[in-house]
């Protein structure tokens, strides 16, 4: 079970004083009422709940800076939060911490299409950025499935992806600049409308740092001209091996599709029952390949891809004839999660990445684990980039099933690392995968990361209890000793 850093009784005792002080910085923006705080007790990973001590909702960079400076002075812990859609518990509250919500900083500040960028506050939703430039034919490429709700600031914290990452990249590859408030309250700017700011790539470091290094108060993102044409191919295969071979052959032929999504038999059946997308019911694996670009390119590449699929034994190949049909092909994939929700009362979504050619082995091992844990699993897979989302089906009300689901999930992630992949492709470590970090990193790897954290946050007050399996005290620089794979500070709590 999950353990969080023990609350500091001295801080808890000062709750009303701290709330009053914060209210002088952010009038009408402090929540300290237990009933109201329930709304902030979890994020998209609802299995874990912990209401924060106080929520503060600043409206400006200056307010964020003053809140952080106050919390530094008073040694109060902080948990940043955007829309609260994290799937790894990144925004899970702490009993003695202030959750700082950025949702009210939700203005788009500048649209500069001549330089192909948008400047926005962190609480703007991912989709709102695309909407703001849609009239001119532009869009923002990363499209996490929560894009209607998730904020761009949260996207930066998690380095969010989506289904088009192979061709268009993750958040990190589409982010030009940020304004960042450091834990002590200092405001810095990294990057801007120009490319590749020199000095250390702190912009790249902060992206995906899960709210542990500072608070993003402004972003500059790159926007792209929307392709003039797009077509989806729906292809059925008798096995995931065959579908995987098709993906490899497409890339081997020099084609980088806009999206390549795979679903296994269980996911196909669930999606089909849910939205009737027209998926082949006899297929053991389904591949959706989307091609975009000028019409001439889409025409040529869709015939090349279809030919490759047939060569490796596709049992059916169907190309979308118009945008409505393309949307229908995608509807089943996009509904995979809610569809899984109809197969069982609860599902637990995993997020490992694997080298793509290991897919058949990984799926076989997942089937064995499924039998061992007596829990069903449906698999959806961002096949182009190797990001695997097994959905473990369980019933939280059945005694022991949640624990079995968690253990099953942990085994899947260990397997991903074992075959050369990683623990998380796009959802983040958060609290969920925190204790698995040593599966991927040795003690030195983790110590190097934690010393870097100290360079930003010497008191360890930003989002403690996330990402790292042990709390870490910032000693003199470079003094986190590692000896025979053990840190030399057994006095620090493991949780």
């Amino acid at each position, binding site marked *: 079970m999950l353990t969080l850093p023990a609350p500091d009784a001295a801080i808890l005792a000062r709750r009303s004083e701290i709330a009053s002080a914060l209210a002088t910085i952010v009038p009408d923006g402090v929540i300290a009422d237990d009933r109201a705080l329930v709304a902030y007790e979890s994020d998209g990973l609802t299995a874990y709940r912990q209401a924060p001590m106080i929520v503060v909702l600043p409206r400006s960079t200056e307010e964020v800076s003053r809140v952080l400076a106050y919390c530094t002075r008073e040694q109060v812990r902080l948990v940043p939060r955007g829309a609260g859609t994290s799937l790894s518990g990144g925004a899970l509250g702490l009993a003695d911490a202030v959750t700082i919500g950025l949702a009210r900083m939700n203005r788009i500040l500048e649209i500069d299409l001549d330089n192909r960028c948008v400047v926005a506050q962190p609480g703007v939703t991912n989709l709102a950025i695309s909407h703001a430039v849609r009239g001119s034919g532009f869009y923002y490429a990363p499209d996490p499935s929560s894009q209607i709700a998730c904020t761009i600031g949260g996207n930066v914290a998690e380095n969010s992806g989506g289904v088009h990452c192979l061709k268009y990249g993750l958040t990190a590859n589409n982010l030009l600049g940020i304004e960042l408030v450091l834990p002590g309250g200092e405001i810095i700017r990294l990057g801007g409308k120009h490319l*590749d700011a020199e000095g250390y790539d702190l912009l790249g470091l902060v992206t995906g740092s899960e709210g542990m290094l500072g608070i993003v108060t402004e972003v500059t993102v790159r926007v792209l001209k929307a392709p003039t044409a797009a077509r989806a191919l729906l292809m059925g295969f008798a096995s995931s091996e065959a579908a995987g071979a098709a993906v490899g052959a497409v*890339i081997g032929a020099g084609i980088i599709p806009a999206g390549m999504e795979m679903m296994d038999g269980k996911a196909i059946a669930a999606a089909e029952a849910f939205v009737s997308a027209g998926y082949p019911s006899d297929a053991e694996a389904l591949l959706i390949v989307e091609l975009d670009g000028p019409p001439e390119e889409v025409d040529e590449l869709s015939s090349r891809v279809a030919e490759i699929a047939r060569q490796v034994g596709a049992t059916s190949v169907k190309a979308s004839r118009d945008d409505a049909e393309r949307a229908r092909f995608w509807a089943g994939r996009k509904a995979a999660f809610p569809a899984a929700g109809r197969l069982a009362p609860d599902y637990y979504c995993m997020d490992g990445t694997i080298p793509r050619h290991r897919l058949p082995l990984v799926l076989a091992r997942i089937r064995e684990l499924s039998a061992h844990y007596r829990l069903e699993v449906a698999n959806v897979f961002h096949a182009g980039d190797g990001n695997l989302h097994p959905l473990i089906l369980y019933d939280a009300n059945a005694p022991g099933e949640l624990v079995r689901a968690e253990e099953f999930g942990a085994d899947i992630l260990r397997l991903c690392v074992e075959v050369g992949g*990683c623990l998380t492709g796009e959802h983040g470590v958060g609290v969920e995968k925190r204790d698995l970090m040593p599966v991927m990193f040795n003690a030195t790897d983790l110590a190097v990361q934690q010393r870097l954290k100290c360079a930003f946050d010497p008191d360890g007050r930003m989002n403690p209890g996330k990402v790292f399996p042990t709390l870490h005290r910032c000693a003199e620089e470079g003094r986190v000793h590692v000896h025979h794979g053990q840190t030399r500070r057994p006095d620090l709590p493991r949780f």
Partner: protein
Amino acid sequence: MLPTRPRDADELAAIIAEAARVGTTLEIIGGGSKRALGRPVKASRVLDLSALAGITLYEPEELVLRAQAGTTRAAIEQTLSAHGQMLAFEPPDLGPLFGHSPGLDTIGGIVAANLSGPRRMKAGAARDHILGIAAVNGLGERFKSGGRVMKNVTGYDLSKLLTGSFGTLAAIAELTLKVLPSPETVTTLVLHGLGDPQATTAMTAALRSSHEVSGAAHLPTRASSRAALGTNSATILRLEGFARSVKARAEALAAELAGFGAAESVSDGASRVLWRQVRDMASLIDKDSPLWRVSTAPTCGHRLAAAVGPDDVFYDWGGGLVWLALGGREADAGAARLRAALAPLGGHATLIRAPAEMRARVPVFEPQPLALAALSARVKRSFDPKNVLNPRRIYAET
């Protein structure tokens, strides 16, 4: 003193650990092609990584290549081209700029300097193509970050942090890179005779179109004639990809830009030569004055050049990357007035080529505001508390 030349990552770690213990410093080199880039390093010893060479993994269908840091560009490009693939960030070879022969540079050096060429606008920088890294910090500790998969948010992205850090945080031992298919066809549209502001407008129009322009550079008259594009200025726009697609896009783009004059089309082979010249740029710009590289918002590049009046100039990245020969007769190579002109536009100016004496005196890299400089110094100490690795290569203070 003879350079120390480790044969594997364990030896590399032992050398750095010993330096940290006894308090000596190390200058890290690969092929040595960019030794004159950055502040001059005064170190007790040279740490030569050229023996850490070799491609250790290449899976074309997975778009992944892993190589030791000292592997030469030539070795990597040869392996990739045999499978129709490339480093999409198109790293420039700066060797010739510093008087070396081409092809000496290593992948470790390219990444340590975060060098990216004309395709950077569309395909991303070197830092966007590093999937994983194995390195040794200033205490001699071996560590890794990332891995070999495209999508990975497990832990801090140290791969990006080390990219562009000029060897001041850690010595890179091995890198895993995302590679991509090479384009089937390349074509270039050339617009002749545009002034810098007009050329910027034309490049902006091209980059705002849906035609996926993968290179947009403007060569004023001198650069244009050096590139054998005639006696007028040349604004060049590159289209790459599948033959049918390139043909359709080139025709549509030429039509859309008709207001800027008739576009001349450059064939595949000549296009490749031309963009290599733009990438490596040594042959396109004045050799005598100090050379500056400025990155700013694409629409601002020509305004900066107009403000400082360089001896020679050309533009890449749609106008956002400005190469300026400037300040040949000024004690600070024009640094103060260049940076003053740049400040209101945003961006950074780097003194790429100048005598060592000048690079020791004039800030080579854009000076940072106080809070950022202090943070950078703390980051440096977190990796290299004894200041063993490439001391003061980036900033005089660290």
